[in-house]
């Protein structure tokens, strides 16, 4: 019996061998049918496990990883070991890279560090609005750089459904379940609004996401993955992070702003109401100012200097009073000094720009 226990403890090891070899390795198997059966059952399990198929990600992750790398401050090792692209500020890519821009290996070698440096400079301008805005005169020290975003990739706190008109639901324990105004959710919960409904989400730092009817998203403290539909984002500016809105066609990096996004199968539209945005689709990047917009689909990104409104105030719940928005512990409750723009009462859906039809 003791021998059986010892042999069965090796069942996984013996099951990895062919039956004859296992018996040669462990003579007890020849005489003991119980142990032989045990090893055979283990072998069946091992074979089944080896046949579990590989699951591919739904998209090439390298695009989003490289996009994030290019938008984050360069890591310390790059500053120490790589040749600093001292010409980068002067060679910063134009708003629309000319054809073949990235095809040049010499330029490509500097593209990522240059983009990272440009973003750092831009953030420094935002953090110090009173400082001289001439980028050439800004030389940020390491301490002035924002903290690396990855240090707090999944910050704590819950997402709260601050306002709800109509019906919304959350995917929980394998099924869609109705949710109620005031309900809180762990980050990453999948939420959707039904046709005719509108909702307002309060993020842990006090940022607000208004969700129009028939939309679906995943809500995190530092990002929203908008699967479909329209949403308006009023994001608190926090120098240590870049808030991101992920859509199937690319991503939008938020530098503290108010904007609308519509994600449809044909592509994504962005309309910036107030603040600054950076939009990336594949390798193309556009920075947007007040009133500007962009459309993107596949690898095509088009900037719109006079973007049509994507939504009206009727598409979202009425403004939430600041007292109802949970504030981040590090930040005062007030929404900030910038007055919110008035959203005019034009029709909700203007004609879709070229490229999205």
């Amino acid at each position: 019996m003791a021998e059986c226990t010892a042999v069965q403890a090796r069942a996984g090891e013996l099951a990895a061998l062919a039956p004859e070899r296992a018996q040669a390795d462990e003579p007890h198997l020849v005489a003991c049918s119980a142990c032989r059966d045990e090893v055979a059952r283990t072998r069946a399990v091992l074979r089944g496990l080896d046949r579990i198929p590989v699951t591919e990600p739904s998209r090439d992750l390298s695009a989003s990883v490289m996009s994030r790398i290019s938008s984050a401050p360069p890591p310390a090792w790059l500053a120490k070991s790589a040749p600093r692209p001292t010409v980068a500020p002067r060679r910063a890519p134009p708003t629309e890279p000319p054809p073949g821009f990235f095809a040049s290996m010499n330029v490509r070698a500097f593209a990522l560090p240059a983009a990272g440096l440009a973003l750092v400079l831009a953030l420094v301008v935002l953090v110090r609005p009173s400082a001289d805005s001439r980028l050439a005169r800004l030389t940020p020290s390491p301490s002035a750089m924002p903290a690396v975003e990855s240090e707090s990739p999944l910050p704590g706190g819950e997402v709260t459904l601050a306002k709800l008109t109509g019906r919304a639901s959350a995917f929980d324990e394998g099924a869609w379940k109705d949710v109620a105004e005031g309900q809180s959710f762990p980050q990453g919960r999948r939420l959707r609004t039904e046709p005719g409904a509108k909702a307002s989400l309060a993020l842990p730092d006090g940022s607000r996401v208004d969700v129009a009817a028939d939309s679906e998203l995943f809500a995190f403290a530092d990002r929203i993955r908008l699967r479909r539909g329209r949403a308006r984002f009023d994001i608190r500016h926090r120098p240590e992070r870049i808030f991101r809105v992920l859509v199937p066609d690319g991503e939008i990096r938020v530098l503290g702003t108010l904007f609308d996004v519509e994600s449809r199968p044909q592509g994504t539209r962005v309309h910036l109401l107030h603040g600054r945005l950076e939009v990336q689709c594949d390798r193309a990047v556009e920075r947007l100012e007040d009133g500007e917009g962009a459309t993107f689909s596949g690898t095509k990104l088009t900037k719109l200097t006079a973007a049509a409104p994507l939504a009206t105030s009727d598409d979202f719940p009425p403004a939430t009073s600041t007292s109802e928005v949970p504030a981040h512990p590090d930040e005062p409750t007030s929404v900030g000094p910038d007055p919110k723009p008035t959203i005019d009462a034009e029709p909700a859906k203007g004609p879709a720009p070229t490229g999205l039809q």
Partner: protein
Amino acid sequence: VDGLPDAELVTQCLAGRTELYRSLVRRHQTRVFNFLVRLLRQRELAEDVAQEAFFTAYAKLDTCKDPALFYVWLMRIARNRAFNVLRRGRLDVVPLTPASGDTIEVPDERSIGEGSAEGQLEAREVAAELEKRVMGLPPKYRATVLLRHTEGRSYQEIAEILEIPMGTVKFRLHRAYKLLKERLGKR
């Protein structure tokens, strides 16, 4: 570039050719995701955590002591990230169920071993059932089994990724096989 070994890509990346990191991501993304999606049981979350792991690996690339073992080091980061998520109780955000649209596919014919049609069907059913059972194992056993069987890693590599002694790897596999046999027996 795609033919260069990991060590060369990491070394060149550290020397300033940061665009080569894209090749490392492309090379390892399926392995990392395949491990995470079964560990976390949620596709969107697994993609997010995989991205975080690749980003963290880039930010700390200079701390990869042996560039030839970049994969092991990367998987260790991915494992740490995933276990942080599991510890925070976010495991159940979107379970893998048919209703979620995130179901892991049943293996196709190419992934089934040779044999009769009935044998293939049975093998496929067993693999699908085992996959469900594996995802029901406690996370530390699940991670060990996944690294061994879906990643095909050696005991030594598993020990390095999970940062546990090799004896613990063997013990966990033994326990996991036992649990799986019991659970399969209860079908």
